């Protein structure tokens, strides 16, 4: 395609055109008005690059700066802060903050020390900013923490008897029925159990550890590609790369009152690939149904999936 379309997109992006350039630009466009299509395409490529810069996604790989996300979650979450979430501050010192989300909510909560907790659906945190340390108790659900650097006051997340300690880093903690999952996106954290406080495991960037209830050893495994997918909830997404339908449905059901029900165990084992909106269970069911030859019956409180012809 026309290189001049790229040139004009770049020039116009640099700032207002000089009078001479403006005339040349208009003449170029007038010569063949269809060139506006090529111009739009070039402008869109520049916009894509700009967005990459804003998200920090274009930072050079060797850069030591963590990718910064300007906006994690849109207006919905902001509204949730204002309307739904009770931020209760107790008079007692040190101040304690309770952050809780309802079903389907994802909340980005700035903490008093400059750290940010992004809290997934149906979760509850208690934050205590003390002089010696910063404590967060995750009593239910999942949260991703971007910890403000403060060497003097370690940031400690408690999930049952599991403790995760960070100085300045980013990681997520999720409580399951059977244990606690820790994913590290930046820096390093220290993980241990209160039952064995001296037995500490370091978990570095791009690693994950699942601390099963009752088991003793805590081991971290590399999981960089999975981590991005596992944290897709921060954007309201569910990224699947061959996980069984049962797993996908359990994930989507975390966010919605209206639950998806799979009527056929064999269908539940089919693997799914794709990126889905967690807040649209019916859309998910209908997309998957097309691929798996299933029927979807949606009622007010349930979305049933069953193989065709049953």
């Amino acid at each position, binding site marked *: 395609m026309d290189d001049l379309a*790229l040139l004009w997109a*770049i020039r116009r992006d640099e700032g207002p055109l000089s009078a001479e350039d403006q005339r040349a630009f208009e003449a170029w466009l007038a010569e063949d008005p269809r060139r506006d299509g090529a111009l739009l395409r070039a402008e869109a490529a520049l916009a894509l690059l700009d*967005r990459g810069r804003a998200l920090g996604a274009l930072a050079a790989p060797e850069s030591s700066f963590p990718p910064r996300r300007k906006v994690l979650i849109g207006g919905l979450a902001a509204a949730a802060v204002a309307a739904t979430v009770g931020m209760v501050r107790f008079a007692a010192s040190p101040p304690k903050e309770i952050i809780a989300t309802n079903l389907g909510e994802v909340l980005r909560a700035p903490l008093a020390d400059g750290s940010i907790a992004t809290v997934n659906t149906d979760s509850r945190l208690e934050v205590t900013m003390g002089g010696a340390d910063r404590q967060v108790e995750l009593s239910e659900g999942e949260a991703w923490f971007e910890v403000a650097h403060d060497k003097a006051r370690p940031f400690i997340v408690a999930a049952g008897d599991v403790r995760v300690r960070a100085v300045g880093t980013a990681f997520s903690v999720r409580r399951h029925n059977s244990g606690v999952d820790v994913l590290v996106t930046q820096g390093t954290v220290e993980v241990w159990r209160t039952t064995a406080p001296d037995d500490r495991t370091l978990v570095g960037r791009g690693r994950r550890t699942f601390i099963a209830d009752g088991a003793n050893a805590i081991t971290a495994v590399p999981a960089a590609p999975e981590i991005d997918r596992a944290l897709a909830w921060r954007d309201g997404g569910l990224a699947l790369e061959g996980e069984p339908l049962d797993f996908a449905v359990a994930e989507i059901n975390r966010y919605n009152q209206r639950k998806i029900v799979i009527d056929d165990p064999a269908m539940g084992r089919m693997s799914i690939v794709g*990126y889905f909106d967690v807040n649209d269970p019916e859309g998910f069911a209908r997309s998957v149904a097309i691929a*798996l030859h299933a029927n979807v019956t949606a009622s007010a409180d349930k979305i049933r999936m069953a193989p065709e012809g049953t």
Partner: protein
Amino acid sequence: MAESRAEIVAWVASNILPHEAALRVRLHHMAISPDEIDDIVQDAYLNITRLDSVSHIRDGRAYLFAAARTEMLQRVRRERILRIEFLSEIDALSVVDEAPDPERHTHARRELARVRRLIDALPARCREIFELRRVQGVPQREIAERLGISETVVERQAVRGLKLILQALSEGERKDDYVVVRIGSRPLFKRRRDG
């Protein structure tokens, strides 16, 4: 409500550009020449510049494919050439893509990670300038001063970098694409690893 050019550009960046590669592959399979593919793609974009608003378009990919289809039909009428098999393929362009496929939700992060790799693959001089301008946000005038070269040289490299990146984007990176393939009579979501 009418939207500004900037709003439309931002929408095109997220909803049209990521699907251009798939459209090109389809047109290529219809045995259309590369020049003609370029023309059809350009006209599909042109079609969008004529819109007052894009907020009513729910599916960018379907819209892009439909725009390409309209453009091809116009060509067939203009040229008064009637190729039956060609027409049925044009129809297929809109029919097949009506199904809501999860593969269409292109993951913005993945796309940007790809752009990052494309920047890394640029020729050295071009990459240096492209990094400064697009990654660090330094204006071209300042880049010229810093590197002690003329603004024209900076601009030329900027055009070259953008051209190479757009080209790579529009050719697609098939090994990262998710496609729906049929195994026997049942379509399954599968990852395509070959080209």
